[in-house]
């Protein structure tokens, strides 16, 4: 029981326990009802038949979907690297001491934070080719995603940098570092560590955005599902499997973000090393009394 859950109720007494039991039963009945309705809908339209699901036990189908997942991950990785780099530059621009730079970066972030990614995709699909900018398919997806995600990354970086104690910057300046050095050596390393969970969460959002490949017909996971479904006519089965794959990948990433959060941004061996340096625990009999 953590604080969140305790806020609205005390340790249940006998009466409250009875009510909890009743609510549990009602909830379970509701769940079972919803499940039964779903099964009925599937069964009455013949979508539960074994041959409608069997293809998903075969390797070629999975190979096709996993290829789609691989394309999704590639697009997500390219988007992540580029938009994190651009976002960092934009954040530094917004915090710069030069007014024009600050203004430019601010305008970029404010504009692309409030324009839908799909609109940007339509621009790269239908507008830019007219001006001789015809990207390959992969970049038709990645470029608009980078444009909109870099604005989001910029805001994350900026908030992290601003959240850091001002004394850090002041101390850096006081020991004679230049502004750029203070940022690179003092502020950023600490801010990035604090931001690690938010950055990983943003990765989840970015990975979800790559499903827009559906619109540009880049065969990432969702579009692969579409191709597969139009080929096999197993619409609902295919899209449920695709959804499941997305869920597994993204839930793992979200879980990773929560672990990072709990560990204050540190992952890997640091904790282990620290415990290794501790003296061995005292044995029972040796404890000083």
């Amino acid at each position: 029981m953590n604080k969140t859950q305790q806020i609205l109720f005390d340790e249940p007494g006998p009466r409250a326990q009875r009510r909890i039991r009743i609510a549990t039963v009602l909830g379970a009945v509701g769940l079972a009802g919803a499940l039964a309705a779903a099964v009925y809908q599937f069964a009455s339209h013949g979508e539960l038949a074994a041959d409608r699901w069997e293809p998903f036990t075969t390797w070629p189908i999975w190979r096709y979907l996993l290829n789609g997942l691989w394309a999704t991950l590639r697009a997500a990785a390219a988007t992540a690297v580029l938009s994190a780099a651009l976002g960092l530059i934009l954040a530094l621009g917004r915090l710069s001491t030069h007014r024009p730079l600050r203004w430019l970066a601010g305008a970029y972030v404010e504009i692309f934070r409030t324009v839908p990614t799909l609109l940007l995709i339509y621009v790269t699909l239908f507008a830019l080719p007219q001006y001789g900018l015809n990207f390959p398919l992969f970049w038709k997806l990645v470029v608009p995603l980078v444009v909109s995600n870099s604005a989001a990354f910029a805001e994350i970086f900026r908030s992290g940098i601003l959240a850091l104690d001002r004394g850090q910057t002041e101390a850096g300046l006081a020991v004679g570092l230049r502004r750029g050095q203070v940022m690179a050596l003092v502020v950023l390393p600490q801010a990035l560590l604090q931001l690690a969970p938010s950055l990983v969460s943003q990765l989840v959002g970015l990975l979800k955005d790559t499903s827009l490949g559906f619109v540009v017909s880049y065969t990432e996971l969702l579009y692969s599902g579409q191709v597969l479904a139009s080929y096999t006519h197993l619409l609902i089965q295919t899209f449920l499997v695709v959804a499941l794959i997305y869920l597994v990948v993204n839930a793992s990433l979200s879980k990773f973000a929560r672990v990072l959060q709990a560990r204050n941004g540190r992952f890997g061996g640091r904790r282990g090393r620290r415990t290794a340096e501790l003296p061995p625990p005292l044995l029972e009999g040796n404890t000083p009394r």
Partner: protein
Amino acid sequence: MEALTAHLSQLGHGLVTTVELTVVTTVGAMLLGIVVATLRIAPVPLLRAIGTAYVEVFQNLPLLALLVLFVFALPTIGITFPLFTSAAIVIAVYEGAYLAEAIRAGINTVGVGQAEAARAIGLTFGQSLRHVILPQGLRAVIQPIGNICIALLMNTSLAAAVGVVELTQAANNVNLVEAQPIAVFTGAGLAYMLLALIIGQVTGLLERRLAIVR
């Protein structure tokens, strides 16, 4: 410019559809968010698990995958809605997960003493939630809720990908006729920015009126 003025009614229809979709889904998502946030703090473990599962599933699935599943695949098991309704349901369900998390964060800011006081004067779970916890909790997260509403506005454009002719799709259609991409898409982009600005202003106003300064 002419490309825009010649198709003003078409773009206007798109804009109206976007606004309608945004308003309907905001209301739906808000209600769902409150229900799910309540489930997540309920004394019943099963209900808490349902709330957690809801948030986990809908925060980790791409909205477009949900839209495609709902609009193209559900008809094969006999579940069909009009296109606009389908898009509204899916977006509301999806954004409901985000709003639930924001509302839960707000509930967490309410002092434990408030809840204890509410119980001490004999309010039930529902009463203390309705009269004590939610009014304070919601006021603490007006700004995050406003940000989610702006994200929701931008996400309504995804309805275009399953065939709803809202602003993005209308702009695209006009561009296919006029071949004036810069004017058309800039116009649409400005309209989105204006809508986001309005949401931001309303949020700021609500924040000033309602937020409790501690």
